[in-house]
């Protein structure tokens, strides 16, 4: 797995999310492999490695997306990487503050709406459980209003898809090709 960079990167537009993610992920994998030269290979080690790889996948996805999206910001926040946090905070301090203020106002209007209950009581009850599930699934979903949550979910789904595509391609390219199915 040390020669990933020589393999084909999935062909796409030069600066699409796909390529950005692919590059970052491959770099992260390289780093991981270099770190893990003393292979213990016990299950716990493997588990840790798996977790590290998955975290690397999410982190590189989020950084490929950039701080434009709420969910990517939420993921970036969780990275214990100081550099990334600094980057994020520098970029978005003011922006997010303004957005949060605006969002709070909107939240006050929409959520604190007394008439809401009169209109669609049943609808709210039905939606709430799934809404909560969705909020847990999408990173950073707990503090968004429903509208925004749907937006973020759409983008998140797109990015997850590209993630899966890229990782599958990497996997296929890195395996010995004569055993691969066609």
């Amino acid at each position, binding site marked *: 797995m040390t020669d990933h960079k020589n393999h084909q990167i999935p062909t796409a537009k030069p600066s699409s999310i796909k390529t950005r993610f692919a590059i970052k992920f491959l770099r992260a994998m390289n780093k991981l492999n270099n770190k893990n030269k003393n292979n213990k*290979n016990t*299950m716990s080690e493997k588990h840790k490695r*798996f977790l590290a790889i998955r975290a690397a996948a999410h982190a590189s996805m989020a950084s490929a997306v950039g701080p434009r999206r709420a969910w990517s910001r939420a993921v970036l926040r969780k990275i214990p990487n100081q550099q990334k946090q600094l980057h994020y905070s520098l970029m978005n301090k003011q922006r997010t503050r303004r957005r949060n203020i605006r969002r709070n106002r909107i939240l006050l209007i929409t959520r604190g709406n007394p008439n809401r209950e009169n209109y669609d009581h049943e609808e709210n009850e039905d939606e709430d459980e799934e809404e909560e599930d969705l909020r847990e699934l999408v990173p950073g979903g707990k503090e968004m209003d429903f509208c925004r949550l749907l937006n973020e979910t759409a983008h998140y789904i797109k990015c*997850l898809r590209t993630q899966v595509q890229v990782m599958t391609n990497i*996997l296929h390219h890195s*395996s010995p090709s004569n055993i691969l*199915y066609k």
Partner: protein
Amino acid sequence: MQPASREFSGMNNNINPLLNHHHGGQFDPATPHDDFLEQMLSSVPSSAASYNWSDDHAPPQLEEQSLSSKMRQHQISSGAATAKALMFQQQLLLSRSLAAGNGGADGGSGLLPMPHGDHSDLIDGNSFKSINPANDASIEALLNGLTGSLGQTSNQSQHFHHPHNFGSAGAAAAPAMNHPAASGGGAAGQPRQRVRARRGQATDPHSIAERLRRERIAERMKALQELVPNANKTDKASMLDEIIDYVKFLQLQVKVLSMSRLGGAAAAAPPVTDISSQGKSGNGIQTASSSNNSDGMTVTENQVAKLMEEDMGSAMQYLQGKGLCLMPISLATAISTATSHSRNPLAGGGGPTSPSISALTVHSASIGGGEPSPKDGGPVFNSKR
């Protein structure tokens, strides 16, 4: 009748709730009545605008006209003082429900300047007959009910009798109505005209925000539907369920992929195999025997092959009981490659020989690790067939 009752039940002292609840159903605009109605209606807004709603005389007087529901619709859609239109509707409904010759004092309200004869052609015959004294009592009752629910006193009803008795000409009634109406319509019309609500939409800022929000949500749900496969389009709730399941599925895929790169699935091997067999549908499932345990393995192999014919689930369970698992080829190769790279001295090199060697190494590694539990996904089968 139902709309009438609904509207009446919703009527409060405020005009606003009237507006809110008055959603006016699916009236059919395309009728021969339209031209006439529009003509009539066009004469209304101008006068309505000046009405002073604070004066309670106006609403009951409108009751006199029994216009068809389509007229109501036109009134409302024309964006005229909607409160007044509401009143029209309710009264019209009431009067229509009587199904008697309610003569909306045609001229009386100032809405029907034309004589009866013309009306009856275009609009329901019931609605436009001359006012019968017999009807007055019922109309009175209606008025009372109307005024009562409107929070008006019954004194008003007597006031209404005057235009009532005018008859079809009702020219006198028209000004009579106009004056009080003028006072009433203006005050209420002005704040309401500020927020020009379309038909079926309330002017209440809260509900406007609510509607905007709902529209936005609907847009986004549509966008999500395109992304997610199996777009039901039926139900918001089921759509949400689909979305949630899809997100979970994608996240699981990422997890599986990141596990496969390691070599040695960490968590939950059986789900790994299931899902990877779904996701990589072209893969064959390999079973193999390593040279060491060929006897034991072949027996197991045959067993598994038999079981697989009947039921995959039981085959998997059988394997799990032995501390083994099935997995697709690409996953196995990935794992074997990973382990062969990590164990360079053992692996002779890449190529066809490595998988079997690495199978051995994996096997021995897992045994050496002392973790034979099936959860850990035991030794990997690789095949050479």
